[in-house]
């Protein structure tokens, strides 16, 4: 088991290096002078020279790649945004928590609804429930996220205006609603700029988490209200896909011989499904859940744009339209590495669910 996990982790390393190489190549491939695209068109010759030297642009490509990797891997230095003249790492501390909350709630929604729907569908195969669920999920995967977002915003903020169902169409919190960071509430003394302070900032930027642990309930409920529409929009595609894979995986497993054995033992149908079948069906499901985090990241770009959420997706989009290359590069690396990490976790989960993995 340990060996399996270590091996999985080791296997992820070349992929992460590959990600760095790809982002490096993309940055190199962007037409134009790298200095000017990093420092802006009006950068002076001297500034460019200094920049080139610092980035090692006067050296062979391989050396440059090495420098780039060293900066990210060893120094955690992602460079600075051109547009905002701020370190990208600072932007990550601000932006990532927003996307995390959005993504995690969407994922929870997708899993909590998708898996039961899929199970129900598989168990009641060809029933009306099944047909409805599958038609629904087919429509779900075919729907443009941003369109759904716009429609939801229209329905819940305009159509249902003046009803209890009204939901805000944009923003993370209502204007003026600000949560005091937990470390201020608890009066922690943090050395500003230190790793601890950065971590504290990161966690206090998780609006729901921060307001929950400090009991700022008006902020919490406001945050939830603002989160509902984007999370629902974002969860649609993963939900539909999870429901479908759950159904087909359950159908596979329900046809398996050990399920027949379980039934032959006299196990009640509910136990057959929830204990014997589901545990086995879970393998493809968690794979898909892992893969769907990619959809979530991508969907976040669109959803955050629609709902004026200041997460990484929105920032990435702004950076792309603004050709803010250090931000594009850094955010892409972070998202891709996060994606790899999630799929690594999925792989490791396998080992806990499926005993056959251990002897691999």
């Amino acid at each position, binding site marked *: 088991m340990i060996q399996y996990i270590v091996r999985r982790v080791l296997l992820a390393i070349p992929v992460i290096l590959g990600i760095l190489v790809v982002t490096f190549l993309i940055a190199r491939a962007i037409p134009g002078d790298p200095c000017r695209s990093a420092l802006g068109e009006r950068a002076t010759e001297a500034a460019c020279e200094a920049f080139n030297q610092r980035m090692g642009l006067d050296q062979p490509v391989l050396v440059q790649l090495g420098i780039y990797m060293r900066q990210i891997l060893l120094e955690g230095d992602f460079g600075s945004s051109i547009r905002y003249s701020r370190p990208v790492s600072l932007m990550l501390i601000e932006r990532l928590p927003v996307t995390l909350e959005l993504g995690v709630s969407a994922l929870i929604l997708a899993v909590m609804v998708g898996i039961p729907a899929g199970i129900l569908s598989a168990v009641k*195969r*060809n029933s009306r429930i099944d047909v409805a669920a599958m038609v629904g999920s087919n429509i779900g995967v075919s729907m443009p996220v941003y369109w759904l977002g716009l429609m939801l915003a229209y329905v819940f903020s305009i159509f249902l205006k003046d009803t209890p169902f009204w939901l805000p169409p944009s923003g993370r919190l209502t204007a003026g609603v600000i949560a005091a960071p937990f470390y201020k509430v608890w009066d922690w003394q943090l050395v500003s700029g230190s790793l601890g302070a950065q971590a504290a900032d990161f966690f206090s930027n998780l609006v729901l988490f921060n307001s929950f642990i400090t009991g700022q309930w008006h902020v919490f409920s406001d945050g939830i209200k603002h989160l509902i529409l984007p999370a629902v929009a974002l969860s649609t595609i993963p939900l539909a896909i999870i429901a479908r894979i759950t159904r087909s995986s359950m159908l596979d497993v329900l*046809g*398996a*011989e*050990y*399920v*027949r*054995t*379980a*039934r*032959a*033992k*006299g*196990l*009640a*149908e509910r*136990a057959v499904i929830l204990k*014997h079948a589901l*545990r*086995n069906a879970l393998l493809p499901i968690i794979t898909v859940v892992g893969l769907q985090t990619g959809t979530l990241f991508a969907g976040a770009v669109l959803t955050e744009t629609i709902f004026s959420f200041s997460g990484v997706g929105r920032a990435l989009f702004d950076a792309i339209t603004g050709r803010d290359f250090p931000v594009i590069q850094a955010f892409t690396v972070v998202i891709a590495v996060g994606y790899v990490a999630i799929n690594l976790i999925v792989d490791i989960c396998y080992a806990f*669910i*499926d*005993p*056959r993995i251990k*002897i691999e």
Partner: protein
Amino acid sequence: MSTKKTTTQPLLDVQNLKTYFYTDDGVLTAVDGVDFQVAPRQVFGLVGESGCGKSVTSLSLMRLVDTPGKIVDGQVLLQGENLLDKTPAEMTKVRGSQISMIFQQPKSSLNPVFTIGDQIVEVFKIHETISEKDARQQAVELLRRVGIPDPERKAQAYPHELSGGQAQRVMIAMALALKPRLLIADEPTTALDATIQAQILDLMQDLRDTTDTAVILITHDLGVIAELADRVAVMYAGKIVEEGDTTALFDKPLHPYTQGLMGSIPVLGDTKERLEVIPGNVPSLINLQPGCRFASRCGARVEHNLEICTQVEPDLIEFDAGHKVRCWLYQEHAGHTPPLKAFADKKDRK
């Protein structure tokens, strides 16, 4: 071999069982009116080639037929109670405690994500109020009984860590855990290697002699029947074509199909230049022709020029005491005397 006469009420009485599969291409009559009785403690063999409906029959008894299959008619009386009338909840109480089942592929019949100990313990837990500890102890005891070496440790093993033979022993242990009245063994040795098959057959023989459980033994291998069964029914294309005590049937096979089957199998130590052959193929069970289902492949029909075979389906009639056959050769019908000679020719085979 002790032939137990079924004078008392049978343990299991199957009447006119029909299980059809509703496929895209039409209705497949997998089991089409099967009747048989199993006495207590009896080993009842059900033999036939693949697709003849023997496995579907066994699943029908357990009411475990999957869609698109459906039991459309008949009765399955277990000690007089019709299982087909029970609610699904009642049926789960019967399964595992009164009737249990083992399958052809022992390794894939065990759930890969639970230890075998857990899977046996589960049987106790479903049907009895029993402490975890007692159940575990009993499970280990069962494993020892079916010949698993070092059962305490093996109880912690996962199915993939077992060999096929061991897995089948586990399946047997699980099936016998609650001392059911009836065990359905669906091709229990087919997937196993020869030497392992011998071990399992030996185990089953031992169990037959030491428990009160009746067995329905489903197989395509006449040798397995010869080893274990008290009584045997031969199935062809969804119907029982011949049924009798095992010795009687092996001594004196009546149906041309049974005769052909026996002649087509090479027998160890009994070499002959050519094997007897049943020409043609098993008919499709969708869109069946009228008449006897074996008619198209039946040499005797040609030999005796029986036209009725292709028009009317014969009934299963008792030819000898306890020896039934479904064939026009043995039945009287309009203007025809059954050519008994056909069977007399084969009488001496052994």
